[in-house]
């Protein structure tokens, strides 16, 4: 009987029904695609955020390799490709080695001791047994470095930091002496950091020049990480075995750093906290924003259902009064409206689900340039949203219906 009432009453108010179903569908689609996107965001936005710079620094440990003079310590260049063997290797998005040296330069009679750093700008490292090269170099960790001119590709080329160049009056194309050898300035480097006071040249050539073959001073790594949570801040030394395993196998910046330390001989790694924490905060806020938008979408569509249902209720006052006179108590009236809401919710929810698949796909493509991965979650989220909308949307109409007085409705004209 209930089914009959609902079926017939729907057929009787097609416009209102379609309006309510559309309300639910749009709200559901909004909420479901937003939630899916928010799940994608951790992955995709952190990838985008990685362009803000390296988040792990690898340095030589004190008891690391000694150089010939016995004072400085270095890392081995050959260990760089090993970062592609760790558990979280796929999360290593960029890696850039640096070799720091001190040199004396002289330009038009002025002599000065400056830092001469060797690095790669953009270099593909061959990986054993893999066709694809591992992209390394400054561009993979600090893409914002600006070079006016060219990165030095020959043994006698350097780039000069912009502050240094200004101080010494060096321009692109000028010549200068470094440790008594003649070099040509192939470009001016501007980073906004210490690099602006330094000289840069190709890592391999500097190693040769300084007789430090195979040595690097520090390595910056840009890794995709899981935002640090409470568990992540626990000291791994105090963890139980299973805890340690969980920690090790979660992509926290600390556990990835630990794994890198294991493959770089004589190394010590540390997260660059400022970067890691900023990322966490940005993600947190983005997610908050999305939940907020989600809430608004749900509320707006519940409001749509609610107003439409009240409008149609106003036309059904006689009917409800009559039902009450015929013996319907509140529970029966509630049952009728809740069932109507349920049917609207189900149809609207399914439509919204279809819309959400399209929307999530579209947003994923537009915003992140890739398809969404969490499609499986869409259905439960869509159903949940639709239910929330239709339940919230029917509360007011039901309260209104319960207040209808049959006597007023049914009093005969005579």
């Amino acid at each position: 009987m209930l089914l009959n009432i609902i079926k017939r009453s729907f057929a009787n108010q097609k416009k209102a029904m379609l309006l309510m179903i559309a309300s639910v569908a749009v709200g559901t689609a909004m909420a479901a695609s937003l939630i899916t996107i928010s799940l994608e965001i951790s992955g995709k936005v952190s990838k985008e955020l990685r362009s803000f710079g390296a988040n792990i620094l690898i340095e030589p440990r004190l008891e690391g390799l000694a150089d010939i003079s016995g004072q400085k310590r270095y890392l081995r260049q050959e260990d760089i490709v090993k970062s592609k063997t760790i558990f979280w290797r796929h999360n290593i998005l960029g890696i850039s080695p640096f070799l720091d040296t001190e040199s004396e330069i002289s330009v038009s009679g002025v002599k000065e001791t400056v830092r001469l750093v060797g690095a790669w700008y953009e270099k593909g490292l061959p990986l054993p047994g893999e066709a694809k090269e591992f992209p390394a170099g400054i561009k993979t960790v600090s893409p914002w470095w600006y070079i006016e001119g060219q990165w030095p590709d020959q043994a006698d080329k350097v780039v000069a930091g912009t502050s240094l160049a200004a101080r010494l009056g060096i321009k692109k194309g000028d010549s200068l002496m470094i440790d008594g050898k003649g070099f040509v300035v192939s470009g001016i480097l501007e980073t906004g950091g210490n690099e602006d006071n330094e000289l840069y040249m190709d890592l391999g050539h500097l190693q040769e020049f300084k007789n430090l073959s195979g040595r690097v001073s520090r390595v910056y790594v840009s890794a995709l990480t899981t935002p640090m949570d409470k568990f992540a801040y626990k000291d791994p030394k105090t963890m139980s075995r299973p805890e340690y395993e969980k920690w090790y196998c979660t992509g926290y910046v600390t556990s990835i750093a630990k794994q890198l330390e294991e493959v770089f001989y004589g190394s010590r790694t540390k997260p660059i906290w400022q970067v890691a924490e900023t990322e966490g905060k940005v993600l947190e806020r983005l997610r908050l924003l999305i939940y907020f938008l989600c809430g608004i979408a749900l509320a707006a569509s519940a409001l749509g259902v609610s107003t439409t249902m009240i409008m149609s209720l106003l036309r059904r006052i006689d009917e409800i009064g009559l039902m009450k006179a015929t013996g319907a108590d509140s529970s029966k009236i509630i049952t009728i409206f809740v069932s109507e809401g349920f049917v609207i919710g189900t149809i609207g929810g399914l439509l919204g689900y279809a819309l959400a698949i399209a929307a999530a796909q579209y947003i994923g493509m537009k915003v992140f340039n890739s398809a969404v991965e969490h499609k499986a979650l869409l259905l439960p989220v869509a159903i949940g949203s639709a239910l929330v909308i239709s339940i919230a949307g029917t509360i007011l109409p039901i309260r209104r219906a319960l207040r209808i007085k049959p006597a007023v409705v049914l009093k005969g004209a005579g």
Partner: protein
Amino acid sequence: MSFVIVRDVIKEYETAHALRGVSLEVEKRQWLNMVGPSGSGKSTLLNIIGGLDSPSSGSVTIDSTGIDRLSEDDMARFRREKIGFIFQQSHLIPYLNAVENVMLAQYFHSMSDEKEAMEALARVGLSHRIYHRPSQLSGGEQQRVCIARALINSPSLLLADEPTGNLDRENTRVMLELLRKLHSEEHFTIILVTHDPFVSKWGQRIITMEDGRIIQDEPVHV
């Protein structure tokens, strides 16, 4: 003890005194007609007896239950057990067909039973109109659906507010004969409001109302 006892009922609306102190007792199985000019308070009294409206003061007892003290939901449950209504405008759900309208009353009472609902329509002579919508039925047929609906849960009190108000003489007669037959078979109590002298002769007792009071109470002289 009388089946229906109305005691000192006053009903005041903001703009009108609908009932100015009405007392009335109706015996079980009695057929009582209520007449009087328009605005004299007939519908108000009938609605108060049926629990659709509540008195400003005074009490109403039906079958030993003080209905003025029931909550709205308890009243709805009391109503579906004991009372059937017929109104002037036929008041059927427009999008349900005849048998579904009857079944709705069953549904609110307990469980709908299509066979029983069809039998009820057969008893009011509508076997051939079972699947017609209200808009496809004549005024007389609609009122007969209302009778079937009012009686489907075997009420002990039938309240009818100008049930023949929109019918011609022939349809009025058909309807009253039907009611008389059902009344003699099922022994429910009838309170029927009318201002048609032809109709008021069909019962056993007539009360006349004027300006919110009962001014005359007499048996029907056949």
